C-alpha cells in the first residue's frame, strides 16, 4: 500500500458527508462501528443501573427496597434485555463492523447501507422498548398495548441485529483479499464469523416466538397467560448456553491481543479456529428449552441432562484449548510480554469465559445427578436459582465488559487515532474485575447455599419476597454483595466512558502512529485512523499476519 493512502473518490463509491447529518446516511463501516460501540456502552450503564435496583430489592427477603411490587418484574426484564440486546451483542457487532473489513483487506462491508440501517433501526427499537417499559408495558406490564409494543420493539431489535450480523458474516465470506484464505484470517475476524453466524441461526427463533406471543396477547389471550406468559418464553436469550454465542468475539479479541503482544503465530492455527468455533457451536440450542415448552427441559435423569452437561463441557473444552494455545504462544516468546491494559483485560476476559462455562457445567451436573437433593423434595434445580445470575454476571459483565475494555484500548488508535490513558485503563481493569467478582460471588453463593430463586415466572413478586423460599436469611447479605459489585461495575463503565471522552473527545490522548503496539494483523498497515469513506488502495493479503511475515521470519515459526 502506498504511503499516501486516501479515501477513494472513484465513481460508484459513496462519498461521505463529513457533517453530523452524515452519521445518519453514512455508508462507511467505520462510522457505523463507532456508533454501535459508543451507544451500546451508554445502554450498558442504563441496564446496569436497573440491575442494581433489582439487586437492591433482593437485599430484603420480605420487603421491596427500591422498585416496588409494580415495577420489580419489569425492571428485572429490562435489565436483562439491556445487557444482552442493547449492550453485549451490539458492542461486539460494532467492533466487528469497524475492524473486519480492515483485517481482511476489504474496502467496506458487503452491504454498508444495510449496516447503517441496522444501527438506526436498533437505536429506534431500543427507544421504543424503553418507552414501552416507561408506559407500564413489557412482560408483566399493566398496559396491554405496552406489552404488545414491547414485543414489537423486541422484534425490531432482533431484526436489526440480524441485518448487521448478515452484513458482517457476508463480508468475511466473500470480500477477503484475494489470497487470504479462511484459515489465514486474523482470530478476531474468525470469531466474528462464528458469532454472527450463530446469531443468524439462533436469534430468529425468538422472532417466531414473538409472532405467536404477539398474536395471542393482542387477540384474545387464549392460551399464553397474557402478560404473564411473555417472559418465560423469551428468557432463553439471556441465559446460557445462548450467552456463549455473545462472548465468542471476546475470545477473538483475547487471541488477537495475546498473539500480537507475544509477536507469535499460534502454534496450530486450525486448532485455534476449531476451539473458537466450538464455543460458538455449543452455545446453540438454548431455544429448545424454555422457548418451546415454557416449562424448561426435564434435566433430571433425562437425555436433556446429558445434553446440557455436554454443551457446557464442550464450551469449557473449547475455551480451555484456546487459552492453552495462547499460553503456549506467550511461553514460546521467552520474554515477559509488555503489560498493558489490553493484555490484562484480554487475559481476564478469556479466563472469565472459562469460568462461565465451568459454572454452567457445575450447575448442569449438579441438577442432572441430583447432587445435594437438587430437584427433589421441593429443592429447586441450581439453574432455577441465582446461581444463574452469577453466571450471567461472569459472562456479560466479566467477559463482555472486560473484553470490550481490551478491544477499545487495543484498537483505539485505529478507531479514533488516539491512545487511551493507560493508567486509567489499568485502574479500569481493576474496578471492572473487582465488580465482576462481587457481582458473581453474591448471587452464585446465594443460589448454591440458600436456594434463592432466580426468577419465579408464575409469581414474579415472589422473586423479591423470597423469605418463604430459602433455607436461611444469608441470601439478603449475599444479594447485597452482588449489588455492591454492580455498583462498582457501573463506576467502571463510567470510567471507561470518561477515559474515552478525555482521550478522544477532548483529544488529550497521545496521537497514535500506524502501528503503536508493534502488532501483526493487516489493520495496522493502514493509517490511524483510516480516512473516512472507502480506502483508495487496498493491500493484497496472503496472510493474517503480514507485518510478522516481513520481519524475522525464521524466529516466529513455532
Amino acid at each position, binding site marked *: *500500500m*502506498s*504511503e499516501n493512502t486516501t479515501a477513494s473518490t472513484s465513481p460508484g463509491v459513496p462519498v461521505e458527508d463529513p457533517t453530523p447529518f452524515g452519521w445518519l446516511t453514512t455508508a462507511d463501516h467505520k462510522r457505523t462501528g463507532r456508533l454501535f460501540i459508543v451507544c451500546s456502552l451508554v445502554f450498558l450503564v442504563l441496564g446496569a443501573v436497573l440491575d442494581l435496583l433489582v439487586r437492591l430489592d433482593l437485599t430484603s427477603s420480605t420487603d421491596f427496597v427500591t422498585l416496588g411490587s409494580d415495577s420489580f418484574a419489569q425492571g428485572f426484564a429490562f435489565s436483562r434485555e439491556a445487557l444482552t440486546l442493547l449492550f453485549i451483542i451490539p458492542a461486539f457487532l460494532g467492533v466487528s463492523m469497524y475492524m473486519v473489513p480492515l483485517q*481482511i*483487506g*476489504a*474496502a467496506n462491508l*458487503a*452491504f454498508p447501507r444495510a449496516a447503517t440501517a441496522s444501527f438506526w433501526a436498533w437505536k429506534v427499537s431500543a427507544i421504543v422498548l424503553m418507552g414501552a417499559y416507561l408506559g407500564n408495558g413489557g412482560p408483566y406490564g399493566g398496559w396491554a398495548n405496552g406489552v404488545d409494543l414491547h414485543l414489537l420493539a423486541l422484534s425490531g431489535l432482533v431484526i436489526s441485529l*440480524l441485518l448487521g*450480523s*448478515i*452484513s458482517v*458474516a*457476508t463480508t468475511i*465470506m*466473500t*470480500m*477477503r*483479499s*484475494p489470497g487470504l484464505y479462511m484459515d489465514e484470517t486474523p482470530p478476531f475476524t474468525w470469531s466474528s464469523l462464528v458469532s454472527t*453466524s450463530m446469531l*443468524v*441461526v*439462533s*436469534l*430468529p*427463533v*425468538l*422472532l*417466531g*416466538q414473538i*409472532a*405467536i406471543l*404477539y*398474536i*395471542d396477547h393482542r*387477540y*384474545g389471550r*387464549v*392460551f399464553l397467560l397474557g402478560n404473564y406468559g411473555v417472559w418465560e418464553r423469551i428468557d432463553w436469550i439471556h441465559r446460557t448456553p445462548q450467552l456463549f454465542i455473545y462472548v465468542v468475539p471476546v475470545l477473538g479479541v483475547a487471541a488477537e491481543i495475546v498473539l500480537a503482544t507475544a509477536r507469535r503465530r499460534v502454534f496450530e492455527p486450525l486448532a485455534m479456529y476449531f476451539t473458537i468455533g466450538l464455543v460458538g457451536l455449543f452455545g446453540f440450542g438454548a*431455544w*429448545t428449552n424454555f*422457548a*418451546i*415448552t415454557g416449562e424448561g427441559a426435564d434435566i433430571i435423569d433425562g437425555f436433556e441432562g446429558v445434553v446440557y452437561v455436554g454443551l457446557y463441557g464442550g464450551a469449557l473444552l473449547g475455551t480451555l484449548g484456546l487459552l492453552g494455545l495462547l499460553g503456549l504462544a506467550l511461553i514460546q516468546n521467552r520474554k515477559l510480554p509488555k503489560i498493558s491494559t489490553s493484555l490484562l483485560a484480554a487475559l481476564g476476559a478469556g479466563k472469565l469465559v472459562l469460568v462461565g462455562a465451568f459454572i454452567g457445567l457445575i450447575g448442569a451436573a449438579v441438577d442432572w445427578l441430583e447432587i445435594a437433593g437438587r430437584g427433589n423434595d421441593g429443592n429447586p434445580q441450581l439453574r432455577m436459582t441465582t446461581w444463574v445470575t452469577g453466571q450471567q454476571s461472569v459472562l456479560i459483565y466479566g467477559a463482555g465488559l472486560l473484553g470490550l475494555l481490551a478491544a477499545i484500548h487495543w484498537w483505539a488508535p485505529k478507531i479514533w487515532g488516539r491512545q487511551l490513558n493507560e493508567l486509567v485503563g489499568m485502574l479500569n481493569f481493576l474496578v471492572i474485575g473487582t465488580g465482576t467478582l462481587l457481582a458473581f460471588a453474591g448471587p452464585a453463593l446465594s443460589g448454591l447455599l440458600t436456594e434463592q430463586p432466580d426468577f419465579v415466572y408464575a409469581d414474579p413478586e415472589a422473586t423479591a419476597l423470597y423469605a418463604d423460599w430459602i433455607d436461611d436469611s444469608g441470601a439478603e447479605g449475599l444479594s447485597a454483595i452482588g449489588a455492591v459489585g454492580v455498583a462498582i461495575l457501573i463506576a467502571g463503565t463510567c470510567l471507561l466512558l470518561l477515559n474515552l471522552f478525555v482521550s478522544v473527545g477532548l483529544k488529550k490522548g497521545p496521537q497514535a*502512529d*500506524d*502501528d503503536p503496539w508493534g502488532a501483526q494483523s493487516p489493520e495496522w*498497515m*493502514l*493509517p490511524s485512523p483510516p480516512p473516512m469513506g472507502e480506502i483508495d*488502495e*487496498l*493491500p*493484497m*493479503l496472503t496472510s493474517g499476519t*503480514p*507485518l510478522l511475515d*516481513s520481519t524475522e521470519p525464521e524466529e516466529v515459526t513455532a
Partner: protein
Amino acid sequence: MSDTTPTLASGQPQRPRTQLVATGFACAAISMMMAGALGFYMARRHASGPHPGSDWLDGLAVPNPQFDYALLTLVASLVTAHWALWASRRRDTAHAWTAIATTLILGLGFINMVMYSLNRMGVEIGAGEYQNLAFATTGLALAVVVVGLLYLGLMGLRSLGGSVGQQGSTAFGAAVFFWDFAALVWTVTWYTVYVVK
C-alpha cells in the same frame, strides 16, 4: 503509514456471489424463525392430547382442494422463476420478462388462493388456540412469500433493466434461490398446520 511498514502490491478484492451468500444467511435465519414458530405449534399440539378425540381444530374443516391448488400454483411459479433465470443468463430479454411477469402473477394468485382458503375455513383470530397458532405460523410463512415476491420483482427489474451481465444474473439467481426457499417454507408450514394439523 510509517517507513517501517512494508509496502504491498495493491489489489481490488473480488466480490463473488456476495448477494447469494447474504441470501443464504437470510434463508438460514428464516428457517430458524419458522422452526421456532412451528416448534411452538407442535409442542402445543402435542400437549392438547391424542389427535382423534381432542377438539384441537375447534370444529374447523380444512379445505384441502383449495390449499392443494395453492401449492400447485406455487410449484408452477418455481418453474417460471427458473425459466426467467435461464433466459436472463442467455440475455434473452423477451423470454426473461415474460417469465418474470408470469412468476409474479402466479405468486399473487397463490397469495389470493391461500387467503380464500383461510376465509373458507373460517379461521378467526382470537377465537381459539389453534386459530391463533395457525394465524401466526401461516402469517409468517405468507410474509416470507411476499418478501420473496418483492425480492424477485426487484432483482428482475434490476437484472433486466440494463445489466443482464454476470453480476446481474447472479443477483437475480439469488432472488430465484430465495423464491425456491419461500416455497419450501410454505410447504413445510402447510404440511404441519393444515395436513398433519
